[in-house]
């Protein structure tokens, strides 16, 4: 409630300055309040029910010794699960590997997405809408299908291997394409690139074109204009796109399951295993929270290091 007060307070004087009489002012204020709460309450209820409550449940489950007695049983809390995790250096190593993979995926997706967004914003002209639609068409098929498509691309009898065999470049199908971390990274970069392009595009579209003219008039080269204008001004979009890809990729489990093979598991697969294969929700919940905390910490540190405000300023 307290954070909302200033908004309403601000509404007051401006309504007054609009020259309205007392009764109208009151009604206006009421209307604004109704609109405000009408807009705020549904998403708040939604988030509370489907985000906060599950999050609290995860915390509660992670503090249980086991599942005995059902999810809602009153069991004295214990840190056993976190203790177990401390004794499992392999899990933390895999968490580190997953962060490294997510960084690689996010960096590659951002690098690939930037030229796409740049083209759409500055070069596509009247066809920008068409190209944007083309960029978004893959989302009409399900995520799973797009991942499965990479099995068809990379498999031993797949598109790439058929090409290599038919051109005589290799005598045997190349096996290292599928069922390893490489395949996971390739697939994730493919899946994420269009997503990452969208915030970058939004950032580029906000750049005032007169800035380029002014810079050109002052004798700036195209490279310098890009470096001094486009890059800093699009930085918030680039950073948003990067983390939009990085954060969910850390916890990814579907892609490694489908194309990662025996050695391509990520941290998210361990969590999934504890939930669906080991009947050990408490340990899985503790691992989820460790991941959540670890990822948040990592992002906070990264943002601090990059300092986006300095980039823009």
């Amino acid at each position: 409630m307290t954070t909302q007060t200033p908004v309403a307070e601000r509404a007051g004087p401006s309504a007054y300055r609009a020259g309205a009489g007392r009764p109208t002012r009151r009604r206006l204020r009421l209307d604004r309040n109704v609109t405000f709460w009408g807009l705020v309450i549904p998403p708040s209820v939604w988030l509370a029910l489907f985000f906060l409550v599950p999050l609290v449940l995860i915390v509660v489950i992670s503090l249980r010794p086991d599942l005995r007695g059902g999810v809602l049983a009153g069991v004295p809390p214990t840190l056993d699960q976190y203790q177990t995790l401390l004794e499992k250096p392999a899990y933390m190593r895999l968490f580190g590997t997953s962060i490294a993979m997510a960084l690689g995926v996010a960096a590659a997706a951002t690098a690939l997405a930037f030229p796409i967004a740049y083209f759409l914003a500055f070069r596509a002209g009247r066809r920008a809408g068409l190209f944007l639609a083309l960029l978004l068409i893959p989302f009409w098929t399900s995520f799973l299908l797009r991942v499965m498509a990479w099995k068809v691309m990379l498999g031993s009898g797949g598109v790439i291997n058929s090409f290599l065999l038919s051109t005589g470049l290799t005598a045997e199908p190349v096996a290292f394409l599928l069922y390893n971390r490489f395949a996971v990274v390739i697939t994730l970069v493919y899946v994420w690139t269009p997503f990452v392009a969208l915030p970058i595009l939004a950032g580029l579209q906000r750049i005032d074109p007169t800035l380029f003219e002014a810079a050109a008039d002052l004798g700036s080269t195209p490279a310098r204009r890009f470096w001094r204008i486009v890059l800093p001004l699009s930085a918030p979009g680039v950073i948003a796109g990067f983390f939009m890809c990085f954060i969910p990729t850390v916890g990814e489990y579907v892609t490694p399951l489908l194309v990662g093979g025996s050695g391509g598991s990520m941290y998210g697969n361990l969590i999934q295993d504890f939930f669906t294969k080991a009947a050990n929700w408490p340990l899985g919940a503790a691992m989820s929270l460790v991941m959540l905390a670890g990822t948040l910490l990592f992002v906070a540190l990264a943002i601090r290091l990059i300092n986006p405000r300095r980039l823009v300023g």
Partner: protein
Amino acid sequence: MKRYARSVLAVVAVLALLIGGAGISGMPTAAQGSGSLTVLDWAGFDDEQFWIDFKNAHPDVDVTFEMGASDADILAKMMAGSQADVFHPYTGWLQFYVEEGLVEELDTSRLANWDKVPERFKELGQFDGKQYFVPYDWGYSSVLYRTDLAPEAGDSWDAMFDPAYSGHISMWDDGVAAVDVASQVLGLDELNLTEEELDKIQQLWIDQRELNLFYWSGEPELVEAMASGDVWVAYAWQGAYALLRAQGVPVAYANPEEGRHSWVGYYGIRAGTENLDNAYAFLDGKLAEETARNVVETFYYGSANQDVMASIDDPELIDVLAIDDPTVLDRTFFSPAISAEQRDAWAEMWVDVKAS
């Protein structure tokens, strides 16, 4: 603050009306509750053909299916308080439901088809002399191999660890199965494993990981990889064997010297269910002729109805299920009733293999 209070109240009132309204309009269906049943089952078993006798006898009952991804998943959901009336665990997991008090003791006189069940299957669903579970489907786990690419793989479970098949082996993604196989290969007493022995098993699978292409979790995934020639040797159920044979892929289903493994699927009734009559009728329907026959013909699984099994004359099915070999089940190895501690330790061992 007073002026906000009124508008907040207005919005809350609207919301309350909406929610309340939904509740009222939802009530008539809830009142017809005598005619409902919720089944917690594996994907695929929700198909009508696997409960057709129940459906025909009770067309008015509103049957809902919830899906479990594995035995562990179904157990976890039941322990977490699932309100499913009927659930479908397999041998090796039944005892946990009894220990946790999650399953209703059965009065077999309420099952008209009970006398069609062979004694062996009845016994596996008994604990402390009480019947808790009704069997439905059964089958094997063994080495499935491509006879053209790995013709020698049929002698022993050792094939799963043979470097000659490096990059062409696929193990099922399951900790208990991993301990089953490794104990036999290493000659260990599975039910009395010491910590060192479990470490040894873990190391065996960590080493095997270098040879293993992927851990399969669903039969279609395995069938596709074996048909394409990516996988030559795999831990598999007879369903995959039957599907590959039907596609004309040269495969054989091993009778390894250590013996095949076998499993039986059971249905249990949740303790305290309000739909007890429907639950009994559902379980009885599982043993009825048509429902039993469909699981044999669709999944190539065995049925717990011995009359149906005796009437099978399709040579393919007889071969796939080894029905013509009356001693085959005696030579197989049923997943033993492990303790909750063993279950957790084995599952953790398997996660450690993947994390290492």
